[in-house]
């Protein structure tokens, strides 16, 4: 026990002496989380609009005001020819162009069919498809209201049945991307620090040749590894605290149990560190260790649903995502934060996350032992 304590103390000392590294890790968990949460979203807002209104009537004005009244569309430029829309889109000064035909108001009043042209810059396909949805919704509503207006003028038509979708969004009623972003950043930082730190502490000793010295001390193999991993776990769990503070600051609901979240994070560190140990046995020096980590981290992060939802990936990649432990950690964290569910719902994810660690950790240890005590 005393040996273990001394060895752990050595690891902590070594870690805290590298203050630049401490700053970087804290930065990753705090400043980076804040910046990303403020800046990044897939929300569509303030699209600049180019309008070619050939009708110039009160009605066409009204339709355009429907667009500008929303948050989705911002600055509006009126143009006097179709070529100008081309230019504005080409130069990136407009994201969406609307062209109203000369007979627009007349057609709407008499109930003839008429077409409005909506031109979108598809450079960012996500923004474009959301913007198209908005534009269609605005025009459809305008059209339905115009039809109702006409019907009111004639008494021969009885009430037409209309089915109205009442849409309710759960877990995140205002559709704030921030909620997702904060949760995703916490998960990514947790996996990253857990894995990389484990790799670094292991390989560093290997590279400087001090691993042999450690092996020669009366320290037993498992004590050595435990001492190495205590700082990884401590940092990994302690750094969740500022992240939780940031989550509260952004108003992210923490509907479930904090304790359960910490439990999940500990299990995640266990499996991340397991991967880390395994990587450290594959690498000859620190540079290799770090690069191999990136090699493994990227696909693992990518297939976890922290960046884009797994549901919108093609089927083969969806199956592959089951291999990424981050997927389970992400589902657990989202579930606890936004949905407020507990073990009764999340037990399969907990089990799989733990199972992943329970497989990779011993494999890593076995390779490590073989490497050191050969």
């Amino acid at each position, binding site marked *: 026990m005393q040996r273990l304590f001394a060895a752990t103390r050595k690891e902590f000392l070594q870690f805290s002496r*590298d203050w*630049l*590294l401490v700053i*970087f890790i804290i*930065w*990753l968990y705090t400043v980076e989380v804040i910046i990303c949460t*403020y*800046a990044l979203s897939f929300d569509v807002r303030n699209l600049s609009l180019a309008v070619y209104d050939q009708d110039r009537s009160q009605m066409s004005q009204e339709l355009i005001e429907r667009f500008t009244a929303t948050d989705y569309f911002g600055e509006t430029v009126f143009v006097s020819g179709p070529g100008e829309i081309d230019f504005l889109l080409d130069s990136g000064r407009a994201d969406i162009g609307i062209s109203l035909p000369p007979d627009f108001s007349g057609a*709407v009043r*008499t109930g003839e069919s*008429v*077409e*409005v*042209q*909506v*031109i979108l810059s*598809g*450079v960012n*396909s*996500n923004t474009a*498809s*959301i913007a198209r*949805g908005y534009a*269609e919704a605005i025009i459809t509503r305008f059209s339905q209201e*115009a039809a109702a207006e006409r019907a009111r003028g004639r008494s021969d038509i*009885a*009430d*037409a*049945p209309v*089915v*109205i*979708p009442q*849409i309710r*969004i*759960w*877990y995140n*009623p205002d*559709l704030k991307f921030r*909620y997702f972003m904060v949760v995703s950043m916490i998960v990514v930082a947790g996996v990253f620090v857990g894995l990389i730190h484990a790799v670094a502490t292991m390989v*560093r000793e290997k590279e400087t040749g001090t691993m042999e010295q450690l092996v020669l001390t009366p320290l037993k193999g498992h004590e050595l590894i435990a001492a190495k991993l205590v700082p990884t776990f401590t940092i990994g769990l302690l750094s969740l605290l500022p992240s939780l503070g940031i989550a509260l600051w952004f108003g992210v609901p923490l509907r479930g149990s904090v304790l359960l979240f910490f439990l999940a994070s500990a299990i995640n560190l266990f499996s991340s560190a397991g991967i880390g140990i395994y990587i450290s046995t594959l690498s000859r020096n*620190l*540079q*290799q260790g*770090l*690069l191999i980590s*990136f*090699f493994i981290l*990227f696909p693992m992060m*990518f*297939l976890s649903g922290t*960046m884009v*939802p797994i*549901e*919108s*990936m*093609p089927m083969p*990649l969806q199956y592959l995502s089951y291999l990424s432990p981050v997927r389970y950690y992400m589902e657990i964290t989202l*579930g606890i934060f936004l949905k407020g*569910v507990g073990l009764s*719902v999340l037990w399969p994810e907990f089990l799989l996350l733990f199972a992943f660690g329970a497989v990779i950790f011993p494999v890593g240890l076995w390779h490590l032992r073989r490497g050191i005590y050969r």
Partner: protein
Amino acid sequence: MIYQLVKKETREILRDPVILGVAIVLPVIMLFLFGYAISLDVDDVSMAVYDQDRSQESARLIDAFVGSGYFTIEHYLDSPGQVDRVLDKGEASIVLAVPPDFSRDVNLGKRTEVQVIIDGSFSATALIVSNYAASVVNRYTEDLLDRRGEAAAGTIGINPRVWYNPPLKSVNYIVPGLFAVLLMAFPPMLTALSIVREKERGTIEQIYVSPVSPSAFIAGKVIPYSVIAFFEMVLILAIGTLWFRIPFKGSVPLLIGISLIYVLTTVSIGLFVSTITRTQFQAMFLSLIVTLMPSFLFSGFLFPIATMPYMLQLYTYVFPARYFNDISRDIFLKGVGLEYFIGNAVLLIIYGSALFIAASLKFKKKVA
């Protein structure tokens, strides 16, 4: 002298399969992952139906959802409690609840509401799903009126046209952006690691005492990694156009010319990182913060810059990926010429040369 150093560095790189893996294989893996998987468009939304009416009319509405091609029905529910459960467990991301008197109201010609409940955890997709659901119900209403001979005459049709990327395929905007990302994500980190490694091992002292001049040492490090980065870029260009069949509308020499400047800029960042840090672990973390993460997050690659708060829009100018991302998409998708993005190009050149000079000076001072 420089030639010898480049040769030595190249030999070291070629000897290490891991470096080549990260420099060449990882970008290709990422290209495929991003190319196939980054899309917020959902065409197989898992849906649960809580039909309290169980009539011909409600079946028609449900058919309208299935027929749209966006939704797949996974569950039929019998109680409101089950609605909670399927959403909580993530077994469905949208639930359609049809009220008990739905068909009666529809036949009476009343306004009727159906409830659509959507999992909003990932807001961007939820938004698209809710747009789909609304348009399905609207189309159902129109169809209903049509069947009863009350066709809503004179609707305003919408003729949406999408430019630059008509099928709205995300791969078409991902790949041109990926140049900006990958050229900034890995080459600077590799450069920084390779210099700091010499520091950590003490072999840099040997360089200091040798007749090698600091600028030759820098060139010896920068050139091989720039070549790798350039090779990376040609590879992505080839896969992007040949495999993913992304239309390349602009001029190839123009893109290559500007990307050379860009590569030099990003490698200079790596150089700069190596002058600040002492250990490889530090260098890796600093590269992560100043190159890898910003290249993904603050370049406009995935997340549009226009929606960021103003201060953070200014922050994106700190990273050269932002300039190059705009240029690359302009050339690739719009096919416009230099006059459209001359501002970005000039900024990039100033940025790159300033950084290169600063990093070299800092390095020289250390040697002296």
